[in-house]
């Protein structure tokens, strides 16, 4: 089927054809000639009553209109596609697409607009793909709006996660985008991807969101927690909102916040929390205010038990006192009783020499039989991770010289002696140095070293760790931004499949031009015989 790559040129026909018609308004009557006595010609062969030939079209006007139409068709770049491309519809189901518009949800408006546009694509293979989750897509029939709605609804029902935009270049074919344009940087992707049509939905611009709920232990009193709540106004008008803090489903505190447009407001609160507490922050609109378009970002939930606020740990065997002191000095650690029936620890510190097949991380302390003071500085190995930031003093380790056992991975060595190694099964660390050696345990680096090893084993920051749950304020921005499709730039597939039809139009255009020049020549010759008065040869 022929298509026009630049169809806007055809709009020029709208004023051009009436203009030609107007310029030739007298052509159907031919030349106007004044005569002294009209009755001398009335009734003669070749004469007609006035208006008797109005139905006869003026061939000159028709020729010129056709010529102009052909030229405009030429510049409109007519092409014939040898096969129909696959139409890929990229559906943006970011958080802003879930906004509630006055009539329906923003994504539902987009679906309606999409299927209205797909009515022109009957017979073409259409695939609906997710813009935010690469790889997710379903084949789409332009008449199966219900199935498409269900698929999109299932995408939206899953928790929102901001993903990367699809990698470029896209697969060959035609590509559309269904979005509200609220995401940042989307226009650049649209241009680079060669999106030929953008279907946009949504008009609401005002949204307020809770962007952060975080908690940390008090620096002066570790038994208390400092709670921080942050709310943002992403709309264009100043609003007043109420923020409510719930602890374990009970309302604990609320604040009345006046938030200027484009600004964030924070509130801090200190209270005592247990390791199993559940913190919830809610952003509430006044009763007389319009409903929030995006309720999903008005609530933040933080479960301390899941976030490592209190890490249960067990200490087995007869461990050096220095280890007990260090473990007891970390507020985030909950030292479990060694009695049977206690809770499952997240890590174990074992000082016994027994083999252990526990599945939880294990920190095994090996007491060297004949410890020897090791001179020189200990060196962290590449697998040490964050522990490498700790600078250890020289001549503070005492251990058994030479390599010990078959360690999986040595992370701290001194010469050829392994001091700390990482184990794969069970996961954890082996400490091969003497933990009774006073030059070491009296060093301020010692508790930091032990704490770092425990942190690495349990995967939770134990010293001054901040637990936080956040909403990205960019994701909560729902203001639609107009996106421009790249209709003027044909995709590589279209270029490869298009057969240029301009050659077929240039031939009749030249023929019309030659015809016109021929008649103009005859007309000039005829005009040369005319006298001033217009009727005398």
């Amino acid at each position, binding site marked *: 089927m022929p298509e026009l790559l630049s169809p806007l040129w055809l709009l020029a026909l709208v004023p051009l054809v009436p203009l030609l018609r107007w310029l030739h308004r007298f052509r*159907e*009557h*031919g*030349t106007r000639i004044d005569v*002294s006595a*009209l009755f001398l*010609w009335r009734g003669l062969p*070749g004469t007609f009553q006035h208006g008797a030939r109005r139905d006869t079209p003026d061939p000159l006007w028709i020729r010129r209109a056709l010529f102009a139409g052909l030229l405009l068709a030429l510049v409109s770049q007519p092409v014939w596609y040898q096969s129909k491309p696959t139409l890929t519809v990229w559906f943006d189901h970011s958080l802003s697409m879930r906004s509630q518009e006055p009539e329906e949800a923003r994504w539902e408006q987009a679906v309606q607009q999409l299927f209205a546009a797909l009515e022109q694509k009957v017979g073409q293979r259409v695939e609906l793909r997710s813009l935010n989750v690469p790889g997710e897509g379903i084949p789409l029939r332009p008449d199966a709006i219900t199935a498409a709605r269900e698929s999109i609804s299932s995408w939206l029902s899953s928790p929102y996660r901001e993903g990367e935009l699809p990698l470029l270049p896209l697969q060959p074919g035609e590509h559309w985008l269904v979005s509200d344009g609220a995401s940042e940087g989307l226009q650049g992707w649209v241009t680079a991807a060669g999106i030929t049509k953008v279907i946009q939905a949504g008009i609401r611009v005002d949204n307020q969101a809770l962007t952060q709920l975080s908690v940390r232990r008090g620096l002066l009193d570790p038994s208390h927690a400092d709670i921080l709540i942050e709310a943002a106004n992403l709309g264009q008008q100043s609003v007043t909102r109420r923020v409510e803090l719930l602890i374990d489903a009970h309302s604990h505190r609320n604040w009345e916040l006046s938030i200027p447009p484009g600004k964030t407001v924070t509130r801090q609160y200190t209270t005592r929390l247990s390791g199993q507490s559940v913190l919830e922050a809610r952003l509430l609109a006044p009763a007389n205010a319009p409903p929030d378009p995006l309720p999903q970002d008005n609530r933040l939930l933080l479960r301390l038990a899941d976030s490592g606020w209190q890490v249960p740990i067990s200490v087995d065997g007869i461990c050096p006192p220095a280890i007990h002191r260090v473990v007891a000095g970390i507020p985030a650690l909950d030292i479990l009783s060694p009695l049977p029936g206690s809770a499952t620890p997240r890590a174990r510190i074992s000082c016994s020499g027994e083999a252990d097949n526990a599945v939880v991380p294990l920190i095994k302390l090996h007491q060297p039989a004949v410890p020897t003071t090791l001179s020189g500085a200990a060196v962290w190995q590449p697998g040490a991770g964050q522990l490498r930031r700790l600078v250890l003093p020289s001549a503070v380790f005492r251990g058994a010289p030479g390599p010990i056992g078959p360690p999986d991975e040595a992370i701290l060595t001194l010469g050829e002696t392994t001091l700390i190694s990482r184990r794969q099964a069970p996961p954890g660390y082996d400490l091969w140095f003497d933990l009774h050696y006073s030059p070491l345990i009296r060093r301020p680096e010692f508790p930091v070293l032990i704490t770092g090893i425990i942190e690495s084993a349990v995967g939770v920051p134990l010293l001054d760790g901040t637990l936080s749950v956040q909403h990205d304020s960019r994701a909560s921005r729902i203001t639609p931004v107009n996106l421009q499709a790249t209709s003027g730039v044909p995709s590589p597939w279209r270029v490869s499949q298009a057969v240029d039809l301009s050659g077929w139009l240039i031939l009749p255009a030249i023929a019309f031009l030659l015809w016109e020049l021929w008649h103009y020549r005859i007309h000039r010759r005829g005009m040369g015989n005319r006298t001033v008065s217009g009727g*005398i040869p």
Partner: protein
Amino acid sequence: MSEPLATLNEADLQRLARVAERLFAGRPQLTPGTQPHRLHAGQGVEFLDHRNYQPGDNVRDIDWLATARSRRPQVRRFRNETSSDWYICLDNSASMGLHLGKWSLAVQLAAALAYLLIHLDNRVSIILFSDRVDSLRPLGRGQRAYAGILHLLGSIPPPTRGGGSQLGVCLPHLSRGCHFAVISDFLVTEGMHRDLALLASIGEDTQAIQVLAPGDSQVTAMGNATLIDIESGESCLIDAASVSNRLAAERLASRVLALATHCKRHRIGFSSCTSVQHWREVLLEHLMKPGRTLA
């Protein structure tokens, strides 16, 4: 003075006047003298002839004996012992100005005729008419009257469009028993036949000179063309490739012939000329036709 009158040569006019004097010198002269006395009816005491009674004639002029003999009312005519009064009616319609040379020749003819008539001691008035009387110069004699006539002829060109040619509009300004000269193209549907007959009936003598132009019956165009009557504004669509100028010229010739016949029937002196002719040639031809009298 306008362009047509600028070409009116005084020497030509005097030469034409001498020709006219010789031309009319051969006619019977009732009174010897340097100025010829033309034989024509008018106010006088000496009997000239009879003619049929026409409405408007004085009943006291009816010759009852002649009426009894001819069984028709006859009135006596007397020789006019004074000079005559001439009214020159010049068609000032748009059709006279359409084609180059037509209006010029008409103006030159009117001026030359006025010159001759004044030269022969007649009183001359000139009326420019279209569908109304556009301008009028009352009867006058001598150089002053001639100068006034020239000024009038040079100051009023025909309109470019519209109007018409109705000779009848001059009638209220004419006097019964006078002489009339009509200069026009007579290109109206009815050919002014009725008005000419009316003039002939109320006037002592009526002359008609038809001025035409070649373009009156010829058009040249490519493809379709619209002919527009310059006076009435009526239009007609033609196919220039198939329309025949020859047929239009034949139609015009037949109308000229019909007009000539009509004038002859009403004893109106008639001449037809085209704009390519010289005014002197046209006037001489008209004067030399049998039966012409200028006084």
